């Protein structure tokens, strides 16, 4: 086998600018190239067309390969679409036991980061490029000198068992060495709490699919907490009415800012962080001693919890030992351990330890560290004392960073050993105890990079590629533990094919030892000060993805603001301090100061301000040339400025003062009006448009059609003649399941080559997203209800856009789709005006990628639109055609659910269902006949092909006035 690999490749130095030729070269290269190269050991630099065509690669036909997402530490299972040797789309792996086929917005965006030409081109020696050989020798020599000094390996959570193993082996040679893991947004307290209670420092695996009552204290488990996709799937499985109509979970959220999770809760209570403890204690007291608390709601909640012993779940997102211990006790008493909380096979997704980190920090500060290796993390950016730490690194003889960008930390390191992108190299990970996944590369490393494993190997004089190391490790450590497969090769191939392997583990259930919580911190709240809440946005998260334009442009599902972070303050605060939206505030605590624009946020607790981390990343100034330039255009960022501000210095700050600076800063907010209730200032009381139909679970049980308003069949002005084939494509969206996570938006962007327009254009309401998620606030009896409604082309039967197009650029297909012929469009925008849903998008400018290499991400099945034409959702017609052709070739009918538009595929909660409405047996036609089914604006008689299903929440009653 090795022979014919050699045949295919020659060794020459790399060149990676993408003219047509080298592009074709790459095409020929393909996936086999990647695999073979990584087995071959010898570095394969230049792509030349394959002499022998591998049978699985046909030009123009895309292949799917299982892999693992490295967008965050959740490591969801994905399948990657490779076309002509280019990976062009990431999607969920339906077989995957943990993520169950969902991928979040961040995951979808990883495909763009793959083609980011700003990644390091090769190893750096004090800032300038050098060869790996030189680097290795110098590092090895240095290591010799400082052998017995203290040596640290600082890393973000390491999910990869092989990497961990390699690191340990590497550190073994040094007597005085230590591996320290930490997480920028730490959950260390949870692990510590479990160490106290169960004697094992583990992050439990929360089983939301079993929790009929969920109580969350500031844990944004649907948005950014530990493993959002996994939790979303579990959470929504108990809130899906077509499966089991009489079961519905009850979710209560206590939080200070309006989080994605909170906005999906059945009951959301806005409290200041100081009050969390009281809430937990009173719940605990009640369920322990049945002692009634003064807070009625707490009592009723405690009752519910007691009714659902072993079927409930209390989670706390605050990184505070005391709170976590309380949470544990509650869960223990409720018998949730072993039921909804699994610590026998715990999660490995976050593993950081604040304790170790503190020790490391002190050692670094006290200059008694010989060498430090920094991987999967960016301490100089995300430590509260980042810059200081950076300066201290200067005193350490050997600082090695494995960053793949020349980021904040790389700046302060002597040597940088850039690591390849997740899809460029072999890797493995253990998400939870018992589930191992494989990361399969789909393309040869585009830059001269090396995985951590390879670097460490070469420093321990092991000639082993990461592929070999991984395979060996799996052989010895993992395969040995399983007896499912006869031979290792069989096991290995199956794993690579599926992307994961499940291994039975027989850990015994540990028993609970009550520990007395640490002394209650005296929380002082001098009035005039606000509790500061730092949170992760679903798009930028902890800053790791800040360089990804798709994610920067993705509107926050709650605030609808993109391209910035800001200080969210409550309405009351705004009134008392007379702050307007976009006023720049000075936020300070002692000598810590930062200036951020204010955003007035409904649902924000009045004693708190919330700020998203992950902004102000070095390198975001490259977005200065993103978006169109014209007479009155405003740059997304100035040359010397970053997107947003870095708030990590405030990480350990609890309270801040705020004051107006008199400056203002525009925020790109893409939704001007936030309610379905008509403006009060025009004399409207509670009239509400029946666009978003909702009901409560109780009412739903009584009458399945409750909450939905129908206008009956409208008369037609002409005699309807049945037209079209035996197919009518339709899409249904279950508003009960949709949590607004926005994964569909990025998925659509990747599938349909939707360009990035930049902050100024977003601010001018000219985003090009084909699917958007409308977010409405519905306030009643001082309750806040947040409504998420995905809005895309409704493919109307009587499409108003078609009638008005003068040049027949948009017409109706035989299969009930509303089609747009870009090449015919002359751009009168009449169709866009006449669209009642305002889902048509106009190419106001020529939008170019601000990074040439990023053009490789384009989907060859979808036209790139020219300036001056209208575009819109095509229901992923290219996917429909692909399957139709396939079915035709195989001489069969298209089976139901075989075709999935990008949005439907990516949805972690399976809120979207696509199919043929004319097929009686299809899922879609069943759903569209459900009592909950309705069309948005059906009264205007445009006959949409999209069906929405009334949103149900677990409430006594839903207060709704339809105008």
């Amino acid at each position, binding site marked *: 086998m090795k022979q014919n690999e050699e045949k295919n490749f020659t060794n020459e130095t790399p060149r990676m600018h993408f003219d047509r030729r080298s592009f074709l070269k790459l095409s020929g290269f393909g996936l086999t190239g990647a695999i073979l190269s990584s087995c071959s050991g010898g570095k394969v630099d230049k792509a030349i067309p394959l002499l022998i065509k591998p049978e699985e690669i046909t030009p123009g036909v895309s292949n799917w390969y299982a892999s693992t997402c490295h967008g965050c530490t959740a490591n969801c299972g994905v399948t990657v679409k490779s076309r002509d040797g280019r990976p062009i789309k990431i999607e969920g792996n339906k077989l995957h036991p943990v993520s169950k086929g969902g991928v979040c917005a961040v995951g979808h965006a990883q495909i763009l980061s793959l083609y980011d030409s700003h990644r390091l081109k090769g190893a750096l020696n004090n800032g300038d490029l050098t060869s790996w050989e030189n680097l290795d020798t110098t590092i090895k020599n240095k290591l010799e000198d400082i052998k017995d000094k203290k040596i640290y390996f600082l890393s973000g959570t390491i999910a990869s068992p092989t990497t961990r193993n390699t690191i340990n082996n590497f550190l073994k040679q040094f007597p005085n060495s230590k591996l320290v893991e930490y997480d920028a947004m730490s959950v260390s307290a949870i692990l510590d709490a479990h160490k106290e209670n169960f004697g094992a420092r583990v992050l439990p695996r929360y089983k939301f699919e079993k929790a009929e009552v969920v109580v969350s204290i500031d844990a944004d488990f649907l948005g950014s907490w530990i493993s959002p996709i996994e939790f979303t799937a579990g959470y929504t499985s108990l809130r899906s009415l077509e499966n089991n109509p009489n079961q519905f979970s009850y979710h209560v959220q206590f939080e200070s800012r309006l989080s994605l999770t909170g906005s999906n809760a059945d009951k959301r209570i806005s409290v200041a962080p100081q009050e969390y403890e009281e809430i937990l204690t009173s719940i605990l007291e009640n369920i322990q001693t049945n002692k009634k608390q003064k807070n009625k709601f707490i009592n009723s909640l405690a009752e519910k919890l007691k009714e659902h012993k072993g079927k409930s779940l209390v989670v706390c997102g605050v990184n505070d030992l005391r709170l976590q211990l309380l949470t544990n006790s509650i869960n223990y008493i409720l018998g949730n351990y072993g039921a909804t909380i699994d610590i026998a096979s715990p999660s490995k997704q976050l593993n950081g330890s604040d304790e170790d980190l503190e020790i490391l920090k002190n050692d670094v500060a006290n200059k008694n560290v010989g060498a430090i290796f920094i991987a999967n993390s960016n301490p100089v950016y995300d430590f509260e004392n980042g810059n200081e730490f950076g300066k201290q690194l200067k005193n350490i003889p050997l600082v090695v960073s494995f960053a793949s960008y020349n980021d904040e930390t790389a700046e302060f390191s002597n040597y940088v050993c850039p690591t390849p992108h997740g899809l460029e190299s072999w890797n493995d990970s253990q998400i939870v105890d018992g589930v191992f996944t494989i990361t399969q590369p789909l393309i040869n490393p585009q830059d001269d990079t090396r995985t951590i494993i390879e670097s460490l190997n070469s420093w321990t004089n092991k000639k082993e590629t990461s592929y070999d190391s991984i395979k060996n490790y799996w052989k010895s450590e993992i395969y040995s533990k399983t007896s499912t497969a006869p031979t290792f090769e069989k096991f290995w191939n199956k794993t690579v094919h599926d992307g994961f392997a499940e291994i039975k583990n027989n850990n015994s259930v540990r028993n609970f030892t009550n520990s007395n919580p640490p002394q209650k911190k005296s929380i002082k709240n001098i009035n005039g000060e606000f509790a500061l809440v730092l949170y992760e946005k679903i798009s930028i998260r902890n800053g790791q993805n800040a360089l990804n334009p798709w994610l920067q442009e993705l509107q926050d599902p709650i605030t609808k603001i993109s391209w910035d972070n800001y200080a969210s303050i409550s309405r009351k605060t705004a009134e008392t301090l007379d702050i307007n939206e976009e006023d720049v505030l000075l936020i300070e605590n002692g000598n810590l100061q930062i200036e951020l624009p204010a955003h007035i946020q409904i649902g924000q607790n009045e004693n708190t301000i919330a700020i998203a981390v992950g902004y102000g990343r070095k390198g975001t100034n490259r977005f200065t040339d993103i978006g169109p330039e014209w007479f009155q255009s405003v740059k997304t960022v100035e040359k010397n400025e970053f997107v947003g501000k870095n708030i990590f210095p405030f990480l350990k700050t609890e309270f801040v003062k705020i004051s107006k600076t008199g400056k203002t800063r525009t925020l790109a907010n893409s939704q001007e009006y936030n309610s379905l209730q008509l403006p009060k200032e025009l004399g409207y009381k509670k009239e509400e448009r029946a666009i978003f139909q909702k009901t409560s679970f109780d009412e739903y049980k009584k009458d399945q059609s409750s909450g939905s308003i129908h206008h009956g069949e409208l008369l037609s002005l*002409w005699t309807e003649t049945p037209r*079209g084939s035996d197919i009518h494509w339709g899409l249904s969206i279950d508003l009960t399941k949709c949590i607004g996570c926005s994964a569909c938006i990025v998925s659509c962007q990747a599938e349909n080559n939707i360009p990035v327009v930049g902050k100024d254009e977003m601010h001018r309401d000219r985003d090009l997203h084909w699917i958007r998620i409308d977010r409405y606030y519905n306030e009643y009896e001082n309750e806040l209800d947040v409504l998420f409604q995905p809005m895309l082309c409704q493919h109307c039967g009587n*499409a108003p856009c*078609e009638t008005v197009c003068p040049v027949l650029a948009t*017409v*109706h*297909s035989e299969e009930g789709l509303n089609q747009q012929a870009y090449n015919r469009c002359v751009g009168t925008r009449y169709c866009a005006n006449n669209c009642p849903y305002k889902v048509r998008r106009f190419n106001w400018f020529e939008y170019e990628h601000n990074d040439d290499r990023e053009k490789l991400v384009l989907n060859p099945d979808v036209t790139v639109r020219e300036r001056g034409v209208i575009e819109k959702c095509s229901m992923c017609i290219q996917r429909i055609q692909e399957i139709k052709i396939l079915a035709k070739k195989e001489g069969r009918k298209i089976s139901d659910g075989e075709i999935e538009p990008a949005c439907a595929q990516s949805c972690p909660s399976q809120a979207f269902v696509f199919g043929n409405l004319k097929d009686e047996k299809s899922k879609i036609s069943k759903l569209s006949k459900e009592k909950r089914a309705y069309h948005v604006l059906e009264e205007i008689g445009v*006959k949409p092909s999209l069906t929405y299903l009334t949103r149900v929440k677990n409430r006594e009653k839903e207060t709704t006035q339809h105008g």
Partner: protein
Amino acid sequence: MNKRLVVTYFNNEKDLLHATSFAKKNKYEIQDVFTPYAVHGLDDAMGLKTSKLGIVCFVLGITGAIAKLWYQIWTSATDWPINVGGKPLNSFPAFIPVTFEVTVLFAGIGTTIYFLLSDSRRWKKKIRPNYKTVTDSEFALVIVPNNAVYDFSETKNRFKQFNYLRMEEIIEKVNNEKD
């Protein structure tokens, strides 16, 4: 062969009108009358019949209408039937506006062109009395003395009553063409 013409100039429409009808009565062959603006009653005085332009206009209009209506139905229902907004292929009501516009276009332009062409013959005429003044302020009556015994001075006397400005006699070269 040559043709003798007698041109009488007046400075107001009243005299002209009387003179013209007088000439008509006395069987003078009136070749034409030249005026600075359309004088009312002159047509009757000269005994001109109403022109056929009206019919022309009507016919053209109808042609346009039928042609356009057919074209619309053919293009949208026959040649390439496309489902547009679920409307019937032959959405007759929607075709009316364009049909109407084309009717007007045909009728208007057609009639004008017909008018210009049909008249061009007279305009191209080589010899004509120096009528400069008639586009300004004077009115000219042109008669062809047809009776065998013709006397210029006698004609002058007969028209004196209409206090004309002057009367001239001119010889017109006729390259045998009818009027």
